[in-house]
């Protein structure tokens, strides 16, 4: 048995080595994977005409693609510019930046043409190789480039204004803000002053009140959330685990069936030894959900009555939903 396991492990290691050469799609920085990141900009499978040079055998098609690529590059450049100037957080995201840069580099020649177009509307002669449809395409490309330039200009014009005001005017307070505040107040007074790391409204999700509960205060908070009359979140609808690479997070989505109030509770856990107190004694729903998170993400839940793997077999090595998980067979 143990021998088998060892073999398995060795196999895994070998695969790890080989698979690290085949850069995964998500690889953040390397400039070598321009094709990949360029390809990922076209989403819909029906429209997935990737504008790589090899794809263009037919001259007409090639020209069209080129024109499309140009426009895209222009848009990307514009966006990049906007991002760099207007939204510092977005620029700070290295992955995104790298991708955008790569996209821009991949179309360096087209970008040059676009610049030319921006400058004075001069003909982007060198871009067009095919003589047949040249004139037509040029016109189209020019028009597009002009539009892109206009957009860029608009962005550039808007950016300083945005920059001056730093954060845009605060949105109107969420309708659920009072509810959130009341609940947060209650938890702070009932459990611990420091029980909540954060409490905010997730506006995207229909103004879902969200708590980030400190790990050590989670169980006491859970008990209060269910039992306190004013909170009374009797129904646990979902438990998710998320691997954020810097830390793991367990999310409990709660609802009170009578008043229909919702609440999302997040608990962060250290990635190397993730531990979150089990909510199973409070809500029986959590039982298999926590087992699933234990199985797939490796979070242990002290207080859980029966913490075993649930989806994978008992002798499985590793936790598949972790971002750094190396599959046994990377081909699959």
């Amino acid at each position: 048995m143990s021998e088998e396991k060892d073999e398995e492990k060795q196999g895994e290691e070998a695969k790890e080595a080989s698979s690290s050469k085949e850069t995964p799609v998500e690889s953040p920085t390397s400039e070598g994977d321009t094709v990949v990141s360029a390809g990922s900009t076209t989403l819909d499978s029906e429209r997935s005409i990737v504008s790589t040079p090899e794809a263009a055998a037919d001259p007409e098609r090639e020209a069209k693609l080129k024109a499309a690529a140009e426009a895209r590059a222009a848009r990307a450049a514009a966006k990049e510019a906007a991002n760099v100037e207007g939204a510092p957080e977005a620029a700070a995201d290295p992955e995104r930046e790298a991708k955008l840069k790569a996209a821009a580099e991949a179309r360096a020649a087209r970008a040059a043409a676009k610049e030319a177009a921006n400058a004075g509307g001069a003909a982007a002669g060198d871009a067009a190789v095919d003589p047949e449809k040249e004139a037509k395409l040029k016109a189209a490309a020019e028009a597009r480039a002009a539009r892109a330039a206009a957009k860029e200009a608009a962005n550039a014009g808007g950016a300083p204004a945005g920059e001056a005001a730093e954060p845009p005017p605060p949105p109107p307070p969420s309708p659920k803000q009072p509810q959130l505040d009341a609940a947060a107040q209650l938890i702070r007074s009932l459990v611990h002053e420091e029980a909540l790391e954060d409490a905010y409204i997730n506006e995207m999700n229909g103004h879902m009140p969200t708590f980030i509960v400190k790990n050590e205060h989670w169980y006491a908070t859970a008990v209060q959330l269910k039992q306190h009359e004013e909170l009374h979140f009797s129904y646990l609808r979902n438990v998710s685990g998320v691997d954020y690479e810097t830390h793991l997070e367990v999310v409990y989505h709660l609802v009170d069936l009578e008043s229909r109030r919702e609440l999302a509770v997040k608990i962060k856990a250290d990635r190397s030894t993730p531990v979150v107190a089990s909510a199973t004694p409070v809500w029986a729903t959590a039982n298999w959900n926590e087992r699933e998170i234990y199985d797939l993400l490796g979070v242990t839940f002290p207080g859980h009555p029966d913490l075993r793997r649930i989806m994978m077999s008992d002798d499985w090595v590793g936790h598949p939903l972790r971002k750094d998980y190396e599959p046994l067979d990377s081909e699959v």
Partner: protein
Amino acid sequence: MIRTEELLLNVGPQHPSTHGVFRIVVKLDGEVITEATPVMGYLHRGTEKLAEQLNYTQIIPYTDRMDYVSAMTNNYVLVHAVETMMNLEIPERAEFMRLIVMELQRIASHLVWWGTYLLDIGAMSPFLYAFRDREIIINLFNELSGARLTYNYMRVGGVKWDAPPGWLDKVRDFIPYMKGKLREYDKLVSGNEIFLARIKGIGRYDAATAINYGLSGANLRCTGVDWDLRKAEPYSLYNRFEFDVPLGKNGDCYDRYVIRLEEIRQSLRILEQALEQMPSGGETMGKVPRAIRPPAGEVYVRIESPRGEIGCHIVSKGKAEPYRLKFRRPSFVNLQILPKLLVGETMTNLITILGGVDIVVGEVDC
């Protein structure tokens, strides 16, 4: 000397009544169960992991394969989640199409349940009657999407195809047909003494237990808890229609049976109204950016699938692929109460109770 010992019996993974590859290890004292441990994962395909490398449109076919008896609602929960994140506007025609196929799917799913449940209880004929009627719905879906089970019909922003000419009339014709058949079902089965003796008072639990275990769908409503997401947290166009949420009192298998049959009737009612109110034309795809990249953030959306609350929790980092996608599968959650219900029951009731929960193993394992 008589010596008695407990019998350890593996029900499944290959067993006619576990509805797929699912196993329950039961300890039997005679025919009475003293302990039951469900074992699952035989159909675990890692949908959530796979989804992290796919863009949102590519994930839709994977949702078909989760709850393969009710693929349309699965489609919807995913596209609905993405649309919520992107704050997209869906054309009315498309939303009506979605609603119609979801309600048809609910009927089809309940018919499968009805047929297989009676098969579990030992009656063979109702299974074939149910499949005859489900076949009509399947054919309708086939005409609409080109597939009989895994439709891949919905898209972020709308639906892939508008109804072909005459399709809506076929749906219209189906409604009175199905109503007649439901009366037939009641005559054949619902009053049968043996059947009633088999399911009345079996697998009983109260509302507090159901809520504690997070049950949803008919499994929750059989205890009298009025919680149908179509009414409680309306999504799609459900607040435009009149329909009732059937509730039980006793929380037993019989109540679940009655509720599911009644839900077919209510779905027919919704369909009637939807066909009446539906705009005669219009777009089936809303204005969707070419690249579907929901902004960074997270959502949890939930809808009422035939089996209960199906939810979709997406964490996005603003890319074309989800950073984390988690499905809250009603079968998985509903099944948790099983070990508690089985203790003290007989082998025969195991099948009755398991069937009454209405699971689809593709969804349990995901």
